[in-house]
């Protein structure tokens, strides 16, 4: 009797079936990557405020030492991936499409890889209070490893605001090429499951759904075997379809309910976490180790030997590429993450960060680029969109410059999954267009905010000037009256006539 067989799934709209190309790396065991000569650890590897550095140049640190602490409610600390000397804190190219620089700590490993002494493992973590679990997760610098890099502790604390009942573990890994979650589940099922159960405890939920796409039968089997002893944990097989891994669609597949627009799945009582996040929680609680390395898939047609690697955070990508035998040919695209939602990388110098789950070097044939043609309204994008949007219209409005109407068409409900652009026969960069519009709207909002501020300032200033003028006029009037009191004939109209001119003068030369 298989539990999964009985589990009823619901259908979602849209979606696509990209060629998954996971075979390139699926059978490669996770290997630890040798320590590179230099690590570049950015202070911002998560959504929210950047971390604030606590170390100084020249200082020696040990592995796991706190390098920078979190700032504010939504933020995450950064730890040393190995022991060594701090070479400096300064601008370094970010792991980001823009190629802008970001504050980064440079660490020269000393080769000893010595842990700090103050590791604080918990022998019986299941006895910890939920608050304590969240606190330790926060201290370990754990952020969502499924790509969003949202500080996980904040999500664990959702229980304070919502009535939660289910934790969904996202093992969909629906992006082509990526196999790191797959390997994690196959190689460390016990640890993953332990982390999952700890998170369930942290959230205070009674049920865990462990969702894995059907194209990973080995992982499903292994996880099922591991979960058999825990009745609360159900391993569910998902139909293989992109973007099954999107949390809202995952939840809909599992429960048939849609998350309200602009809302959180927590409103349905459900929290979604990634497999790798679970493993990080396990490490943090059982061994007291902060998040200092992660598993990545290095793949793509231009990589000589695709691999799954455990990589210290801060390792330059060039190091990974060299370890995988370098390029077989000049790649046409170098991407962080999967091909559907990943980011283009400005160079191979940039470091690995907490959110990097893949490094892909793709060839022209894989990219399947084409000349951009006008939209032929084929509606493929409409049918592919898992969010019920009409991408072609949003795109047309954005190109025509009317962003407000594109928002009315649902721009802000777009999850940037890329399904639409993937199927477009005219090769229109739909998602790029939406990303631009979202950025432009955010910029406009910032400008609007600033405008509000400056409007207030301008009003305050003119009020001040007016008051000053009034005061001056009053003083002048007084003086005049005093003078007139001395002189005999009073002229009523004169002062009224002169004031405007004086005002103008005062305006011009205050």
């Amino acid at each position, binding site marked *: 009797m298989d539990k999964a067989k009985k589990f009823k799934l619901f259908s979602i709209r849209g979606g696509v079936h990209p060629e998954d190309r996971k075979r390139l790396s699926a059978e490669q065991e996770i290997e630890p990557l040798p320590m590179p000569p230099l690590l570049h650890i950015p202070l911002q590897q998560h959504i929210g405020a950047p971390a604030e550095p606590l170390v100084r140049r020249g200082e020696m640190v040990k592995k796991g030492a706190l390098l920078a602490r979190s700032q504010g409610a939504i933020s995450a600390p950064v730890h040393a991936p190995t022991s060594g000397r701090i070479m400096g804190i300064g601008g370094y190219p970010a792991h980001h499409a823009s190629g802008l620089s970001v504050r980064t700590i440079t660490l020269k490993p000393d080769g000893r890889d010595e842990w700090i002494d103050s590791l604080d493992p918990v022998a019986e973590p299941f006895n910890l209070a939920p608050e304590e679990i969240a606190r330790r997760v926060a201290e370990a610098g754990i952020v969502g490893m499924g790509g969003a890099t949202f500080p996980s502790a904040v999500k664990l604390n959702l229980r304070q605001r919502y009535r939660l009942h289910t934790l969904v573990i996202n093992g969909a890994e629906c992006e082509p090429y990526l196999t790191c979650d797959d390997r994690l589940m196959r190689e460390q099922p016990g640890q993953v499951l332990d982390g999952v159960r700890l998170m369930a405890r942290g959230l205070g939920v009674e049920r865990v759904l462990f969702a894995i796409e059907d194209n990973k039968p080995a992982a499903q089997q292994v996880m099922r075997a591991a979960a058999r002893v825990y009745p609360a944990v159900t391993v569910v097989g998902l139909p293989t379809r992109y973007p099954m891994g999107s949390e809202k669609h995952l939840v809909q597949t599992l429960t048939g309910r849609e998350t309200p*627009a602009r809302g959180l799945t927590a409103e349905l009582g459900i929290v979604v976490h990634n497999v790798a996040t679970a493993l990080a929680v396990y490490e943090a609680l059982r061994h007291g180790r902060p998040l200092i390395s992660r598993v990545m898939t290095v793949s793509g047609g231009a990589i000589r030997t695709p691999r799954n690697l455990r990589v210290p955070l801060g390792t330059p990508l060039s190091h990974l590429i060299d370890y995988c035998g370098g390029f077989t040919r000049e790649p046409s695209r170098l991407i962080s993450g999967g091909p559907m939602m990943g980011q283009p990388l400005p160079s191979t110098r940039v470091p690995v960060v907490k959110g990097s789950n893949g490094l*892909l070097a793709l060839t022209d044939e894989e990219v399947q680029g084409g000349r951009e043609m006008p939209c032929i309204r084929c509606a493929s994008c409409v049918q592919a969109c898992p969010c019920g949007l009409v991408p072609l219209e949003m795109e047309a409005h954005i190109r025509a410059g009317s962003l407000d109407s594109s928002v009315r068409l649902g721009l802000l409900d777009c999850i940037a999954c890329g399904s639409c652009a993937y199927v477009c026969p005219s090769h229109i960069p739909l998602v790029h267009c939406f990303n631009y519009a979202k950025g432009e709207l955010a910029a406009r909002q910032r400008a609007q905010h600033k405008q509000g501020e400056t409007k207030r300032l301008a009003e305050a200033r003119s009020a001040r000037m007016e008051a000053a003028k009034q005061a001056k006029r009053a003083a002048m009037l007084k003086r005049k009256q005093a003078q007139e009191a001395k002189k005999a004939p009073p002229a009523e109209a004169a002062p009224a006539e002169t004031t405007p001119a004086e005002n103008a003068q005062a305006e011009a030369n205050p």
Partner: protein
Amino acid sequence: MTVKSPRSAPYTHARTSIGRTMGLVMLALLPATLFGFYQFGWPAVFLFASTLLAAVLAEALSLRLAGKPPRPFLLDGSALLTGWLLALTLPPWAPWWIGVVGSLLAIIVGKQMFGGIGQNLFNPAMVARVALLISSPLEMTLFTAPAPLFSAQAPGLVESLTITFGNPVGFDAVSSATTLGHFKTELGRGVTLDQAAAGTASLWQLIGGEAAGSLGETSALLILLGGLFLLYKRIITWHIPLAMLGTLALLASLFHLLDPDHYVGPLTHLLSGAAILGAFFIATDLVTSPVSLRGQLLFGAGCGLLVYVTRTWAGYPEGVAFAVMLMNACTPLIDHYLKPRIYGRDRKGEPLSYTEQAEKGGNA
């Protein structure tokens, strides 16, 4: 290696392109077209060739005038397809200039004035067909009975050249009304359906393509097969064809039941004229039909209704072209009012709210 102007994901793509889409449609049309050549002989081939040639030349000329690169736009095959569909709706023995003028109208007025592929609001082939029908009603309503190639009544090569390119003499002798045209004139005279039916092709002839008509009207069967091929290849969805043919059949059955003497039955309606070609190849033109599935259902139903109304009560024997153009004009409205529901929102666009409706469905 640096990214000069970064372009966001996805960095992979389905194997689709405009050229492939258009190519598949042409492939789907090929059997019916070849069969039509066989049925109507060389004149049909000549007319077809002139129409397509003119379409491509017109496209090339317009692209040049607009200063667009000709290669990618010519290779996308849309002009060829437009010419092809137009040729399929012309009387097969029409003179060459009908095809050429039609192609010019389709490509220049119907498409390039709007800015070329994807920008046009009306189906270019139907624009041309209606314009031709109105301008040259004589040439556009003279049909011939099939005269299969190499059969005794088929014109020879030279004779065919005169039919298409010259001044045919004695051409009237072979002219033969289409099924719908015949019913229209006869019923218009007050003749009952039974008597009128005497002079028309049987249903089997209609299916097999042995009736007078344009290339695209004959052989309902081959056209249908082509349409199913498109469905299979996911170039089109079932919504428009089904809604259109369904509405047409429904109305025809209803009126036929009410008054069998004056209203033609549903099978004749479906199998004669351009109903099937229209439903699978013309109303489904991507550019000019709605994008949402509900919109497509409405669009198809509208086409079916208008086809029936035009055929039955208006002046023209066939209404597919008018119906498609009228619904094309409604497409922006349909697209405006019938959008898919956005994930997490209700039909009005408000975010869903679960406060009132407790735990409904789901495994919760």
